[in-house]
């Protein structure tokens, strides 16, 4: 299964590198979201610093919607679905591969956004260990959940509007957890943040398993 996963991940990332959509469109979009928040909230340095974690993760979530939609779209072109089914690749491997690709893209995005938040909102990057681990766990959670839900709505004409509706409520706990963990880290009190990190990790595991199990059914079903 891991070989299949690596295969699919490689393919997805190569598609992404060739089209450069993440670099050219999603990243600027994410930064734009950060800027727009500043407009909305009035750049009072104090306020922005306090809400930096929340705004960061909100921007990540919105960007993730785009990344996941793109990931699902790769398999929607004519015949790719059938090719996947007939190829004998383990569906769980396909799932893991796709999720890994999305996760990789999101992590790159998060580094970029992290810099953005430090620069634009004056956040103070202490507690790096917690920051990094929480981000990894949250990203895994978002990628796994998103890949599964992306498959649920893939191929549909209403996909663009349906994906946010089904995915965002499910990811609310991830938003809560990641923001609290980051807040704890940035405030210099990482002890408060580790439990949230645990929640994120558990969430990631839950959805990785669920996705791996369900992907086969979904691939066949359509």
């Amino acid at each position: 299964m891991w070989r299949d996963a690596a295969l699919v991940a490689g393919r997805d990332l190569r598609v992404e590198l060739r089209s450069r959509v993440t670099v050219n469109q999603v990243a600027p979009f994410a930064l734009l979201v950060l800027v727009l928040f500043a407009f909305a909230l009035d750049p009072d340095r104090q306020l922005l610093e306090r809400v930096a974690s929340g705004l960061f993760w909100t921007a990540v979530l919105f960007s993730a919607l785009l990344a996941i939609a793109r990931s699902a779209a790769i398999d929607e072109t004519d015949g790719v679905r059938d090719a996947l089914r007939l190829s004998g690749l383990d569906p769980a491997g396909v799932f893991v591969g796709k999720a890994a690709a999305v996760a990789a893209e999101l992590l790159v995005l998060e580094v970029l956004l992290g810099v953005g938040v430090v620069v634009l909102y004056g956040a103070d990057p202490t507690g790096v260990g917690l920051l990094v681990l929480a981000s990894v766990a949250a990203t895994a959670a978002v990628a796994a959940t998103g890949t599964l839900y992306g498959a649920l709505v893939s191929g549909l004409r209403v996909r663009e509007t349906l994906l946010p509706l089904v995915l965002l409520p499910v990811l609310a706990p991830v938003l809560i957890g990641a923001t609290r963990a980051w807040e704890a880290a940035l405030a210099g009190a990482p002890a408060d943040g580790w439990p949230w990190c645990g929640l994120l990790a558990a969430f990631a595991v839950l959805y990785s398993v669920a996705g791996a199990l369900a992907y086969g059914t979904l691939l066949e079903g359509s």
Partner: protein
Amino acid sequence: MTATTSPGTSSPGAPSVAAAGPAPEVPANTGSTATRALGVLALASTVLLVLYGLVWSPADVEMEDSVRLMYVHVPSATYLYVGCFITTVASGMWLRKRTPGWDALAGASAEIALVFSAITLGTGSLWGRPTWGTYWTWDARLTSTALLAALLAGYLALRRLDVDPDARSTRAAVLGLLLVPNVIVVNRSVEWWRSLHQDSTLVKLDPTIEGDMLVALMVGFLAMGLIFAWLLVHRFRVAWLEYQSERIDLDVALAARRTEALGEVGAGAGPPPGTMTGTSGTTGTTGVTA
């Protein structure tokens, strides 16, 4: 006060029971003796609820009469969760058995749960206003319920897709199966989150319930439960009819295509085009058992 309609008694379906003539009438609705009985009981218990809830039970010491909202709010929240549970179980059963009855049940239960979530949120919000001054407090229960409503809305939206019915049911079933786990995760994290802010304990002052207030609450559970059950049976039947109706449409379309194809054969064209394309096994051969 009670706006629930008399269940099926006003329908033209009654003749199916009364007519003893040679040609029995076809009931033109989703009613039956069972639902009529259920409906009568639901109405009766609702009347009882109105009496107990609005008249016979006392006002609370702190909240005064706004506590009467609790008799609707708490049961409706409970049955909201019951509905979600039914949807998840039915979704799982559909994935195992693949009989249409389970799919119908999953969808019906979710829709009713959405209605109950609206009631829970509405009564919760209106209860909050006189008690704590605002229509919306970000307390754990209301917030979780709001997210739950969103989850249900997403699920119901997914069910309306215009894809091949088998694929639609499969996708919906996977989503439905995840409903209860999602609810659990969301509830836990929202609770934990709000507990970080001390105001959550101050804000949710559950009234001490005793005597007639307790009776009113129990009657509330009874009445809402019967209403839920009545709605579920009818909505399930509607879903069943929708499934049958879709099948009929499919059969009609297939038959039309077949005659078309035969017509072409008659005209000397080659072998008839594949008449079985695009119907991944949903032609009327699926079992009618649930």
